């Protein structure tokens, strides 16, 4: 498959994420949208890595391998840790405001 399909998918996912973050007030959905953006970038990373490795194979250059395949796993692990922190914040948010609506968090106003 050509690279442009991957790019198209990644951009579509990323834009979905951005629109979600901008338009929704539910903090859990915003959180999910952020994850969506992160993973769209991950997808792009994997796709480019595969493309470069394939073209290097054609030129029989053994130095280029698709390392990013592994790299993405690391990102996912770190993202999982980050998710736990984020969810904890959302739990605290709910405890304080009895809601997950981010618009209640406006005490830094002015």
């Amino acid at each position, binding site marked *: 498959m050509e690279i442009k399909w991957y790019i198209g998918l990644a951009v579509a996912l990323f834009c979905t994420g*951005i629109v979600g*973050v*901008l338009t929704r*007030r539910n903090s859990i959905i915003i959180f999910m949208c952020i994850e969506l953006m992160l993973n769209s970038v991950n997808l792009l990373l994997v796709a480019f890595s595969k493309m470069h490795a394939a073209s290097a194979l054609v030129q029989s250059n053994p130095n280029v391998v698709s390392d990013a395949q592994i790299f993405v796993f690391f990102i996912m692990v770190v993202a999982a840790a980050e998710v736990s922190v984020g969810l904890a914040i959302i739990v605290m948010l709910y405890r304080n405001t009895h809601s997950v609506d*981010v*618009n209640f*968090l*406006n*005490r*830094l*106003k*002015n």
Partner: protein
Amino acid sequence: MSNVFQLVWLIPVLPLLGFLINGLGRKQVSKTMAGVIGSGSVLASFIISVLIFIQLNAGNVPKEPFHYFDFINVTALKIGFDFQIDQLTSIFLLIITGVGFLIHVYSTSYMHDEEPKDFAKYFAYLNLFVFSMLLLVMGANYVIMFIGWEGVGLCSYLLIGFWFKNTNYNIAAKKAFIMNRIGDLGFLLAVFWLISKLGTADYHQVFANVSKLTTTDITAITMLLFVGAMGKSAQIPLYTWLPDAMAGPTPVSALIHAATMVTAGIYMIARSNILYTMSPVTQAVVAIVGLSTAILAATIALKQNDIKKVLAYSTVSQLGYMFLALGVGAYTGAVFHVMTHAFFKALLFLGAGSVIHAMSGEQDIRNMGGLKKYMSVTHITFLLACLAIAGMPPFSGFFSKDEILAAAYERSPLLWGVGVGGAIMTAFYMFRLYAMTFLGKFRGTHEQEHHLHESPKAMTIPLIILAILSVIGGWIGIPEVFMHGGHRLEAFLEPVFAQSNAITVKHPLNHNTEYGLMAASVVLALAALIFAWSKFSKYQKTDAEETGFGKVLANRWYVDELYDAIIVKPVQSIAKYFNDIFEKKGIDGFVNGVGKAVNHGSRQIRLLQSGQVGTYVLMMVLGILIFFIIQLFL
């Protein structure tokens, strides 16, 4: 070389120590302690000065200056912290420490009503003054002299404004400081000029290399130095600070504004005598300025009613005579007059202080009179001083003034004539002062009359010592016509002025002329003296205002008003312009404008901080988009 010369450095250091102890510990030391430290340090310096004088008199003159450390040392320019001890310095050392010591002792009693810490502060300033003055006369180059020169100016400022709670006194102090600074600028420029031409400021090297300078250079340097002397020694046009300086305590007036500091200019010119001898133009200027000052100040003194103001103008006038002497090349005469003047003028001021003390602060001679029977010691000593300053033989003033007038006659009979005119006025105003203060009936209030008393011993003993010196002080300079080899001071100072004497052509007066001149000036002064005595001994207080010419004199020729109108007022209006327009509108406007703009702008931008997370995220996305667009398309 004798061991005494190893103690030279102690002479200025002892008063400096006194200054540090009294100044830093002014809250701890008692009045007695402060007085003992202050007077004792000067006495110790006096003793060393006497020992040095004895050595010099025996012919042991140090050939080289005493080098202590390098003051300035950059590439070719080396200025050492050096002291030079020669005959001229020695005479000044004796005057400064001797008269200074007497005045310190006198002050312990005169200032006794001050708070302990003010008392200690007073002695600290006095010691600092003595230190600076000693530095001035002991320095072996113009730079060290300049340090002392500035130091005495500072101390003069501090002491004139000693009672700083009185605004008028502060104004007088500032006036003295500013006028001195104007003169100091001239001095500084002269030193720079010397260094740029000769690469050195050491007296030895400057005087040895004086032939390398062009006439223009010498004239410029000497004129600039003379500007410095004008400021410090109160000559036209910078003399108006001295009468105002009488705001300080009376012993200060005696020490600084009569006996020592104001003679710094005389010392400086006498020290640089060879430079002045080589520039006839400057000499003429010095003589004319000196004589004009002598006459102008004498006329003003005729109509003053404040006891200290009369003495102040008399000081200015006598300083004028000294400059006349320097201008006609009679350097010994000038130094001689410095010495005798230090004795009788210090005595007059201390006597005046004693009178003011007895009169509970009253200074107006119209309210005095008849003090003779209350204060016998003050009266007798004051009378002797008046006779000395009036130039009556055989008192000290006669010899020194006669020498100056004789030297003036050698140069031009006109200078002599005007000089004698000044001497007549001197006799007149001094005896007007004497008669109005001590003779006749008391014109003050009953309370003051009840309080009249002779001053305590600490004040009268210095008066007596100074009176003896005022009488016999002149006998070391008896003119050649009376006694062959009688002018011992001239013989003593001969080496200092040798270089100048070698190139000046002397026209000695014949003896009959000299007797004639002497007789003329003495008879005329005596006539003025008797006239003043008879006119003012029965003075009655009147409320009539001075009229006509008398009013002009009483108002000091309106010189202060003139300076106010042509210098002070314009400067102040320029300052006001810069303050109101440039400073307030321009600089303040700009600084405040920046502040206001930031303040206003931030108040607007603050509204973006809405607290809505969604808005922040939108801003972030927009920002990223903008960067994205810039990256891709620009």
